[in-house]
């Protein structure tokens, strides 16, 4: 097994790109990552995408996106795991390079949301649940999160407003990220008066679905260009774990077992404990997911994860910064691209390129993307090489 490194990164701002097609968004991120990686030509591209078949009526993205970007002839295909698609595609890329079958792989996360709107998008996203037994009851993804949040409030009785701290952290950080959808801090008052999406989940308890494309260029440590102007980042842990698809089939839905196990496996490969990382790009598709993921990772006791947010431990200068470039809430939630955005953002931190959001002396990051309510969880450990 070879050491896998991230040599290049690329991203476009997350947002409502009415003027950009799926293929153009993808090409911009792909070409930026290749350029940033010293111009290495990838032999393969793995694409994290969730909803192109529904929202863009487009399959076979491997051919479309490589063809459009002038990479005809390489290996390329989509990896789908709902909101964890990007993390799962990264996992496939890491496996390919580590095995020696591929020397240079591009991992792309891309999602085109805004060609449809409102309830059509909600219906498409709900396909990450069990269609026959969850979606057919009229439950949305926000509804799944709400079922967890209601139960959490019942079992642990935290202050309701504690959930707002996750949105506050995300927006404070998104304000300094030029690639974030929302670049404005929000107040506790704004959180308290936000409209309900799926009670008790309000508008600020969920990340807005938006267009995005991000890419990382992977290669082996010994095949990486020697003259790059930035440090290499090693992928020292990589895992994807699944739980039951439907929430109703879990003995304890608040346990987020797949989130727990994916962190354990990635950390064990890296030879570290979860608490040894300098930042955690956690999944905040919904505030309750960020909370349950912190607890599942063993960073807080069950029922107490919200205290870390309230105490300031999760802010940029806190003990364990999360959502350092805005997370799903402020950077925006481009679904199948999230896992790759997280990787790009973590690399920015580890290279010291995170601007005003720079986590001091960041050397090691944990990133985790979730498909549905941690029905799939993809976790990676990234470490700076000197």
């Amino acid at each position: 097994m070879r050491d896998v490194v991230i040599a290049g990164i690329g991203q476009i701002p997350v947002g409502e790109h009415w003027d950009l097609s799926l293929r153009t968004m993808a090409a911009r991120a792909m070409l930026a990552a290749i350029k940033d990686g010293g111009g290495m030509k990838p032999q393969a591209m793995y694409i994290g995408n969730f909803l192109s078949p529904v929202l863009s009526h487009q399959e076979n993205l491997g051919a479309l996106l490589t063809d459009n970007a002038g990479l005809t002839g390489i290996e390329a295909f989509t990896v789908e795991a709902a909101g964890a698609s990007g993390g799962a595609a990264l996992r496939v890329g890491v496996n390919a390079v580590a095995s020696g079958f591929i020397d240079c792989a591009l991992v792309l996360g891309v999602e085109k949301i805004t060609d449809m709107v409102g309830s059509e998008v909600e219906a498409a996203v709900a396909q990450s649940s069990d269609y026959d037994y969850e979606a057919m009851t009229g439950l949305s993804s926000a509804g799944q999160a709400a079922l967890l949040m209601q139960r959490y409030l019942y079992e642990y009785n935290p202050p309701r407003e504690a959930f707002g701290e996750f949105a506050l952290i995300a927006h404070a950080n998104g304000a300094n990220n030029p690639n974030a959808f929302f670049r404005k801090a929000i107040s506790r008052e704004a959180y308290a008066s936000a409209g309900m999406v799926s009670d008790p989940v309000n508008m600020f308890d969920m990340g807005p679905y938006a267009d995005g494309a991000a890419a990382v260029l992977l290669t082996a440590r010994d095949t990486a260009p020697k003259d790059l102007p930035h440090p290499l980042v090693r992928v020292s842990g990589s895992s994807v774990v699944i739980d039951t698809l439907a929430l109703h089939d879990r003995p304890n839905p608040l346990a987020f077992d797949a989130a727990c196990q994916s962190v354990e496996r990635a950390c064990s490969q890296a030879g570290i404990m979860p608490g040894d990382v300098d930042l955690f790009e956690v999944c905040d598709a919904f505030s309750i997911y960020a909370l349950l993921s912190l607890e599942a990772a063993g960073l807080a006791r069950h029922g107490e994860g919200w205290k870390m947010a309230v105490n300031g431990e999760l802010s940029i200068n806190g003990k364990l910064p999360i959502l350092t470039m805005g997370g799903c809430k402020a950077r925006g939630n481009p679904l199948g691209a999230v896992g790759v955005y997280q990787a790009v953002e973590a690399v920015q931190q580890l290279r010291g390129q995170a601007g005003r959001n720079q986590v001091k002396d960041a050397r090691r990051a944990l990133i985790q993307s979730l498909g549905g309510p941690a029905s799939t969880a993809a976790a990676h450990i990234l470490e700076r090489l000197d």
Partner: protein
Amino acid sequence: MEIPRHWRLKKQRYGLVGEVCPHCDAKIFPPRDVCPHCGGEAKTAFNFSGRGEVYSYTVMHDAPAGFDQNTPYAVALVKLEEGPVVTAQLTDLGEEQPRIGMPVEMVTRKIREDANERGMLIYGYKFRPVLR
């Protein structure tokens, strides 16, 4: 539309028919091919009573297409008295607010109108508060 798909699920939707594992006696809903408790093959039909209590719930305000005409509506995780948990809408609440622990029972109701696809009506289980 998807007529075969909905037809295939009629026993579950109308009768809450799940399975009992012939190996370990676990009650299973929705039906599966492999028992999640013992790993044996699961295929013996079992009729659930339809009685249970609310484990968690939400009130949907922003609904997916196909349901957006009916907001707000409540969806719950209902813990059946035989053990499994099922996801379903709550109905006939009247003035009552849903609450965790609320005793509920299954009823058959219209669950979706595929309005833009030949007006097909889909019926299935919902749960209502147990009348006292």
